[in-house]
């Protein structure tokens, strides 16, 4: 299986590197929801815009947004 983002070898949807970023995105959503009352989509958009978001996390967020479309 290939990673949906970078086409590296992957066991699931993402390679080992993007999988970690994906796990972080999933884990932090609850905190964002409680703190700023944002929807899943708003959350992903915020991550894409934010300068502190890591490159891999941004790539996964962009992929998740595209996937939804």
């Amino acid at each position, binding site marked *: 299986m290939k990673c949906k983002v970078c086409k590296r070898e992957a066991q699931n949807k993402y390679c080992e590197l993007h999988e970690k*970023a994906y796990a972080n995105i999933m884990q932090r959503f609850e905190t964002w929801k409680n703190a700023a009352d944002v929807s899943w989509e708003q959350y992903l958009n915020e*991550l894409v815009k*934010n300068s502190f978001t*890591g490159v891999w996390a941004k790539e996964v967020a962009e992929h998740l947004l595209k996937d939804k479309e």
Partner: protein
Amino acid sequence: MEKYTLIITEKPDAAQRIAQALDHKGKPKKVEEKNVPYFLVKRDKPLVVVPALGHLYTVAHIGKGRNYYPVFNFKWAPRYLAEKGAKHIRTWIEVVSKMAKNAEEFIDACDYDVEGSLIGYYLLKYACENKENVAKRMKFSTLTRGELEKAYSEPLLKLDFALIEAGRARHEVDWLYGVNISRALTLAAKRWSGKYATLSTGRVQGPTLNFLVARERSIRSFVPVPYWSIRATVDIEGAAYEVDYEKKTFEKRMGADAVVKTCKGKIGKIEKIEKKSTQQRPPIPFDLGALQTEAYGLFGYTPKRTSNIAQRLYLEALISYPRTSSQKLPPVIGYQAILKGLSKERSHKRLASELLQIGELKPREGAKEDPAHPAVYPTGNLPERPLHESERRVWDLIVRRFMAVFGEPAIKQSMKVTINVNGHRFYLRGRRILKKGWMKFYKPYIRTEEVMLPPLKEGETVQLKELLREDKFTKPPPRYNPSSLLKKMEEVGIGTKATRADTIETLYSRKYIAEERIVVTDLGFDIIDVLHKYCSGVISVELTRELEEKMEQIQTNSEKRENVLFEAVERLKPMLEQLKQGEAAIGEALSNAIKRSRIQERIVGGCPTCKTGKLMILYSRKTRKRFIGCTNYFKNACQTSFPLPQRGTVKPLHKPCKGCGWSTLLVKMKGRRPWILCFNENCPKKEERRKRLEMQSLQKRSSK
């Protein structure tokens, strides 16, 4: 020819200094033979001081060829036999051998540390034909006349063999790891792609790169979380003072909004004023790591640069031996004499004289010790030539730190004013120095600022001037820089004070890392991936640290070099077997990484025309000439291209042009100074230059 004593030093500069110190007139005769300098010294008996040129012997493989591994059989051989570009070493050794023939006594005066001991040992053993057991040893920490005279007249009667054994073990273990694993990686990539690229790793390099990769991974997969804080100022006698809200952060926006709503425009009452005085003890003397960290923080010098500058200052007898891990300054170095020497220099005169007034000088010291040398200190000698700016800065830093350690504790006072605004508390903080103590000696290098507050009383009221909610996000862990990486290596105990800075430089030169705030390249990631998968031992801090500890035990005669080598080989064997088994997969992964890295190196920046492609250095298929083109060219989507010089080397700088903001390149040509090229034909800087040149030629014509 009369018999003489042969003194061997580590470098030509040290030889000159030692010869000057030992010659009865201070003017030894310099002789050059085949470009190798040595010095004839007149004293009660004649001396010849001959320098090495750093290591003249190295660990080398017994056998031919480089295209295989494992290799476990090695010997110490002259560098000219083992390394390309070391031909001059042959003449050097020949001259030392010639001088040794007529010598009746031998003294090793190389730096008193692992490397220096090894340099002297192998010259005495091989170039001087087995004189290592009869040679004496000069031990000194500064190249000042007094200390050199003493080291010469009271030498150690034999070499420090424990130190030599530790050095041999370190070089041999590093060679075993470095050669075998680097060959495994290089050959795997070469066999897969047919192309050669040097890939290296080693016992210290591997774990160091591993820290960086771990940090890079957490930065790249970082997801920030929002939080909020309150920013407020109060007005006191027309001036604005920043105050902190009692709760530093809010996890919900609503919480911060509620504070703003309740307190905005309100008047606060001073509830409490607390003052606290604290003592701050003087800093401890510099060991090499602390000097490198301080010089990086203050001047931005990389650890390697600081180490090089310190070495030059040492060779000019301005400071003591810098490659030390000691934080101690024993009285034997002569505090008074050093300060007297420093008091002759205008910029240190006042402070040095002030310290000389103190009856008993007692430095504050740290816990770390080094059996060979004290902490870094100034010798009290003054520069004999104008120092370069960077040398002057590092020397001044060492001088001031030396003086500061003798200073009294500084006394600081902090003040906390609690202001109640509508039931919410804000804190106004001030700090000032009541007694400077050691700080006056270290003044230009102290980074704390005083915050003076006006006179205030409990019960007084103040007006909240500004009150805002600040939207913030958690930040990813900071990137390492060369200095913080060196500190991390020190903390976990890998490498030595003499080699850590070089290890970091190697990571840069191999292109595993880039930039000052260190970014790991794709190649760096792939190297660690491969090592992690096939020989995780070589990136493990534990293994490296264990070996380091054992090598230190050799130094204290509690472990044998042979045992350490045997253990290193036993650990290495299974790793190499695994690397061999996975050779095809490793070759593919590394070849792809090298390919990506080479493409990356050619990228100049974003395309200013189509905005979606990237400008890259490309080669014409027809003429093989190079030019800059857009990556969308091959999709027929963008025709942007720019010409490039065809001679010399061209390298993207990744820095924008000051005139137009376009990307720039560094061009290097033989016989010319490198220059920065902006390829934008309409760059205003080019226009300026054109006009300037025109003006100059007009002026020339009119003057004719």
